[in-house]
């Protein structure tokens, strides 16, 4: 038994909220006593879509020993209610389906004071649907305007902007406009002005931005946010401006924008480095800005490949971050390797002499090819330290060339003598140039 400690709970909730701000969405706020609310519109694609984002979120909480329920809906009210009433860990309500999803929820999920809920229960109301179809005037007369307000908020008839949480040391710059703005060129002009201000602020503190949020406050009290991430700390005006300029068309000005704010959500130390100037050495251009521009678009994965010390071909290459350190490592060059490697080796039918002769002919994808020349075998042993079944597994690789000059990489599973070492079936694994 532990005594409730509301103050510590709130402090922890704030910490979690700040963490969510840096990870998920630019507009995140506490929903005390036990919730966090986020506007994930336009931010979910960075996490692979709504479903993946939500399950990932719940899993990350579980990893820290916290049980969490998460819901996505059109409105704060609906998401709040669903997350607190559902048995499932994640709930996603499609656009425009809010009414259907919340109708059967109990009154307690409406964010009303306890005595109001009790009073409504006494009158025989049980669910949100009961309340939604009741005339408003008598309800307001008896319980005040809050009942109607909460209902409207839940069904999205009244906007309920989220006031985003801001850490104390956040570097943020703002521009308010006397007259609302709306034209893309105007927005672009002010965004670049904001970026310049932000860079000045960052320079004073010796920081560079890793993640920046542009929050658009519209005159009708709604928010829109754009998030841009960078692969390493940045304080370059042109670079940051480009990241936002690419997406200015995504801003919907609506009735007009009255305020723009730009915040460096994650900032890291960035010190000035003197670049070595050499007249002889050739300058290699830094490509990090390009990686950022492409990475912020979504719909693509950017990576480099690096060698892995493994003889098994499909395991010898792995993907690394595009900005990872360059260690100059490469693959051993002793043996020819195909340009294209099939994702899965394809079974072929061959005529071959055992144990160590290349095939005389083989049939791949319905086409029979006569082998004119061949090289091999190159024996590759299974990696017993990975899987028990690879204990004595063997592959014998051959390079074969057919009549027309096409070259393939084929292997026989097994050493040609001992059935224990493999099935002795033949596979085609790659295509040479």
């Amino acid at each position, binding site marked *: 038994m532990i005594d409730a400690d509301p103050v510590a709970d709130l402090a922890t909730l704030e910490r979690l909220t700040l963490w969510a701000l840096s990870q998920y969405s630019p507009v995140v706020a506490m929903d005390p006593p036990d919730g966090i609310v986020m506007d994930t519109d336009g931010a979910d694609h960075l996490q692979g879509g709504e479903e993946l984002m939500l399950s990932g979120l719940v899993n990350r909480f579980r990893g820290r020993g916290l049980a969490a329920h998460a819901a996505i809906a059109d409105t704060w009210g609906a998401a709040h209610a669903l997350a607190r009433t559902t048995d499932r860990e994640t709930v996603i309500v499609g656009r425009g389906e809010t009414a259907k999803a919340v109708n059967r929820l109990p009154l307690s999920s409406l964010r009303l004071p306890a005595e109001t809920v009790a009073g409504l229960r006494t009158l025989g109301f049980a669910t949100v649907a009961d309340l939604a179809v009741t005339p408003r005037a008598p309800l307001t007369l008896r319980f005040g305007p809050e009942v109607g307000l909460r209902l409207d908020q839940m069904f999205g008839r009244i906007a309920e902007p989220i006031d985003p949480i801001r850490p104390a040391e956040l570097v943020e710059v703002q521009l308010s406009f006397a007259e609302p703005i709306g034209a893309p060129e105007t927005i672009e002009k002010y965004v670049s002005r904001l970026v310049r201000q932000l860079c000045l602020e960052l320079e004073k503190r010796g920081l560079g931005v890793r993640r920046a949020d542009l929050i658009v406050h519209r005159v009708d009290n709604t928010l829109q946010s754009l998030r841009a991430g960078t692969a390493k700390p940045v304080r370059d005006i042109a670079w940051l401006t480009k990241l936002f300029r690419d997406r200015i068309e995504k801003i919907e000005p609506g009735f007009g924008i009255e305020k723009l704010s730009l915040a460096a959500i994650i900032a890291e130390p960035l010190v000035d480095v003197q670049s070595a100037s050499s007249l002889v050495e*050739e300058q*290699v*251009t830094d*490509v990090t*800005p*390009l*990686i950022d*521009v*492409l990475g912020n*678009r979504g*719909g*693509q*994965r*950017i*990576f*480099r*490949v*690096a*060698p892995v010390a493994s003889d098994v*071909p499909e395991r*010898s*290459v792995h*993907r690394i971050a*595009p900005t990872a350190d*360059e*260690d*100059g*490592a*490469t*693959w051993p*060059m002793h043996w*020819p*390797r*195909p*340009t*294209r*490697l*099939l*994702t899965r080796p394809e079974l072929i039918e061959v005529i071959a002499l055992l144990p160590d002769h290349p095939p005389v002919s083989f049939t791949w994808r319905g086409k029979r090819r006569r082998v*004119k*020349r*061949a*090289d091999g075998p190159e024996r590759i042993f299974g990696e017993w330290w990975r899987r028990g079944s690879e204990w004595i597994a063997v592959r014998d690789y051959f*390079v074969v*060339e057919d*009549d*027309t*000059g*096409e*070259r393939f990489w084929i292997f026989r599973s097994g050493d040609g003598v001992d059935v224990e070492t493999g099935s002795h079936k033949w596979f085609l694994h*790659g*295509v*040479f*140039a």
Partner: protein
Amino acid sequence: MIAAATSNPVLDELREKIASLEGAGSRKRSVLPFGVRELDAQLPGGGLAYGALHEVAGGGNGAVDGAAAALFIGGIAARTTGKVVWCLTRFDLFFPALAQVGLHPDRVIFVECDKEETVLASFEEALRYGGLGAVVAELVRLPMTASRRLQLAAEKSGTLGLVIRRWRRQTEASDFGLPTAAATRWRISVLPSEPLPVPGIGRARWLAELMRVRAGEGGEFIIGACDGQGRISLSSDTADRPDQARRSFAVS
């Protein structure tokens, strides 16, 4: 033959005028030579032009797997300096093969896209960026409008743009006949390897067809595949070839 152009002052003057009209007048366009005399002679300026788009496809089965085309382009990219951006939709390159033609894995940044359109957009963005050694894209379709945009982007930054055309089915490869704004168009088909005195497979050989080249004439070459530095060579040995007629380098 235009390659061996006579030094006619009137013609030179006209060429200069046209070049300045094309907008490339202020910047001298440099080239990346293959280092093979016969091949370079067919290309204006004596090599693959920087700041231009070059299309390469495979012949026969290579239209689908694009193996030879990828290695040919890998060899070209290996001979440039700077980073290489490689945009594609399905990643089935086996990088050790590219490392064997001299392209170091640290130099290549892959952009794996969901859709063809994203490949085009990323390709263009990378071409515009400037300062890269080469930008490679693996594309199925390359419409005229898109290719013109890409060509302009390449011209502006002076980056070498390389396109691997690769189709799902061999029958779709007839698409390769349609015009694009690319400066050169190649088809690389595999040929039987160089014969060795012992059993085994010698150096791979390709039939490189220069199908189209802006301000120049095409040609066909039998070349030895890229070596450890990405260089190709003219294959001298033709004893294995039944059709000797193909050895005519210059189509005059």
